[in-house]
């Protein structure tokens, strides 16, 4: 699983928590050429979604201007114990998922 997820294991109800994600991907821009002049085809992650107990809390559209191995950090309110699910979708049918759980008290 080529992703690193950082979510606090425990939080108080109502706390705003930070979620950090890092996934491994080349993010080939589609604007580079090989030494013999051929265009290197685009291969990027185009979309990222974070769901908290099934409900979407953050979504991003990514473009070639996002650096290789996309890093995203964002926030959400800790409402209830449960599961965070992460999904990366990209060119050439790329799809990757990860999940982690949180205890809210």
């Amino acid at each position, binding site marked *: 699983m080529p992703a690193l997820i950082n979510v606090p294991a425990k939080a108080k109800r109502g706390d*705003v*928590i930070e979620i950090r994600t890092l996934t491994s991907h080349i993010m080939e*821009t589609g*604007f*580079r*050429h*090989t*030494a013999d002049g051929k265009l*290197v085809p685009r291969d990027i992650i185009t979309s990222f979604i974070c769901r*908290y107990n099934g*409900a*979407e*809390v*953050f*979504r*991003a*559209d*990514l*473009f*070639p*201007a*996002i*650096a*290789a191995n*996309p*890093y*995203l*950090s*964002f*926030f*959400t*309110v800790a*409402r209830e114990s449960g599961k965070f699910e992460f999904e990366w979708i990209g060119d050439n049918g790329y799809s990757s998922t990860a999940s982690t759980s949180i205890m809210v008290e």
Partner: protein
Amino acid sequence: MPTTRRQFLSLAGGVTVAGTIPVVTLRPLEATPAMLTSAIRSVVGEAQLRTGKVKLDIPPLVENGNTVPMTVSVASPMTADDHVKSIHVFNEKNPQPNIGNFYFGPASGRAQVSTRIRLADTQKVVAIARLSDDTFWQVAADVVVTLAACTEEMN
């Protein structure tokens, strides 16, 4: 008068020194290329684009344009009635004007996103926020890039 060796060398030396001075770009603040303007228009539409509310944290000078840390935030209570719907980030001189679109809701708690971006040249980065009342707010930052991204050859 024929140029003496001494005069020639001092002249050549002067040129070399001038050549190593970083190129200072003087651009009018509001002069944005057509691609950037049309990319912004495709998000904002005909709505008024006001300056303020949005905070863009990006280093003013970066050595490597391949990975530039960036944080965009908006001071917002993030309630159902008053929250940030989305943040859109654009650039001026990469091959494509878009960098990323980020979508939030009241469940976000805080309207802030951090990522790492590529910059192909010294240029302006623009962040635009759409609030729940459908007003648009923007901020711009100038970034000097010494090693460009995206356009180098691949071996």
